């Protein structure tokens, strides 16, 4: 019971902090002081206090987009185990639901963007679906590989299965998985080198351009949903990359939080040292990640 409460609390409250840490890391690399760690929270509060403006040409789809996106991500957050504790909801085959919840949320983001009728948003939507088409197989291959390793179809078992012993025995495929998942993590969350979350030029944007027309609380929901998505995929990544379980629930939670913060710093570092890829190169990297995960699957199946 305590674990469930902690699970929900962490999943609800923690995500924006990740964005704050990433921002601070980038600021440190650039030699600036940077915004405070809690800045994303302030931004969210500010947005939620604002009024909403909706274009007359839009329909209910535009309004439903952010809400459905956030709720799908929230359910996904309940499906995954955090800090070596079983997930709140879990059943056999939930990994497929997990993968398609992201599909659902993406569908509504893009369709809401198309609903505005703006050409820029249409362009962003086209890019988003193209790249996610290429990123999705990676996630699936990774999950299937892990499912095969743990011989289970439940996310709770799959993601808590990796242990130091397994890492030693099949380090190669685990390393491939971690590499592939990290690339997916960056791509799915629209981070550099795939997309620049801070860009101000519509022509180069992918994710940001789709949400240009949202304002006030709707935009706040989108921002929060994005942070939550980063948190969920980051948690999947941490579960695989850091297979440590002490047995003490509280210490495990502490380790998990710490690992997530380290992950945020890592993402910040990647964003600081890398430049954004040219659009034509992005599919190449995504296909590369797919091949990595497929290769891992091959090694496991052998």
């Amino acid at each position, binding site marked *: 019971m305590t674990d469930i409460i902690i699970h929900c609390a962490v999943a609800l409250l923690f995500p924006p902090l990740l964005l704050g840490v990433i921002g601070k890391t980038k600021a440190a690399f650039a030699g600036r002081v940077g915004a405070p760690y809690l800045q994303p929270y302030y931004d969210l509060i500010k947005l939620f206090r604002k009024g909403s403006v909706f274009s007359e040409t839009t329909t209910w789809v535009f309004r439903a987009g952010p809400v459905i996106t956030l709720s799908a991500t929230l359910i996904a957050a309940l499906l995954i185990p955090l800090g070596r504790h079983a997930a709140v909801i879990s059943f056999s085959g939930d990994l497929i639901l997990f993968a398609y919840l992201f599909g659902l949320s993406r569908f509504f983001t893009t369709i809401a963007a198309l609903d505005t009728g703006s050409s820029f948003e249409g362009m962003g939507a086209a890019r988003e679906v193209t790249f996610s088409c290429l990123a999705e197989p990676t996630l699936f291959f990774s999950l299937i590989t892990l499912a095969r390793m743990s011989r289970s179809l439940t996310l709770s078992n799959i993601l808590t299965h990796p242990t130091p012993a397994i890492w030693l*025995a099949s*380090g*190669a*495929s685990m390393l*491939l998985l971690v590499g592939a998942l990290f690339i997916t993590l960056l791509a799915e969350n629209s981070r550099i080198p795939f997309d620049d979350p801070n860009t101000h030029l519509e022509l180069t944007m992918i994710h940001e351009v789709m949400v240009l027309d949202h304002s006030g609380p709707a935009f706040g929901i989108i921002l929060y949903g994005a942070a939550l998505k980063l948190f969920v995929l980051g948690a999947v990544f941490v579960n695989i990359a850091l297979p440590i379980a002490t047995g003490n629930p509280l210490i495990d939670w502490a380790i998990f939080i710490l690992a997530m913060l380290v992950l945020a710093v890592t993402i910040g570092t990647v964003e600081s040292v890398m430049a954004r890829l040219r659009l034509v190169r992005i*599919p*190449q990297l995504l*296909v*590369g990640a797919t*091949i*990595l995960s*497929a*290769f891992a699957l*091959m*090694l496991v199946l*052998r």
Partner: protein
Amino acid sequence: MIVLADQLLVLVMLINLVMLGTSRLIFSIRAVAVQGVILGVLPGLIHPFSFHLTVITVVIILAKGIIIPFLISDAVRKAHIRREVEPFIGYVPTLLIGAVFTALSFAFAQNLPLAPEHKDLLFVPASIATLLTGFLLLTTRRKAISQVIGYLVLENGIFVFGLLLSEAMPAMVEAGALLDLLVGIFIMGIVINHISREFSSIDTSRLQTLKEE
């Protein structure tokens, strides 16, 4: 130690894919150098320590990891090129073909009549995959340098298979083979240099004067 050797072979196969995916020549030369160094380390992991082994390791690392990459990058510098132009088949398709080849080589190795002690090792699939990658590079790329790299990768693939039977290839023969490879690459480097001077490009698709009318 065998487990570590297997992990290194996975790395060898990954380097194959990296070389298929990249257009920067210097980068693929470095990748092939890393592959060469791994190949040099591998014999030490699967055979018991001996003086002969140390010499082989040092010689292979020196030849495949340092001298040959140096020779090729020298040719690149002299020819003033940095990138492969658009190859006959694009990068993403070749990468996918490479991945399919790798999968096929796993399937193929499963069905080979291998000795029981070699059944579970990655040597045979890695060897076939590397060989096929070499072929792919040789046939799809236009630049002479990329073709030389493809040839090197092909040789590396054969070498991986050779690791299974070190006693059939005495040190002298192995040294001779390496020396031949070295001189071959050296001469290829010189030829590339002349091609770039003669055609002001090392695009081998321009080499088509000689054919039947």
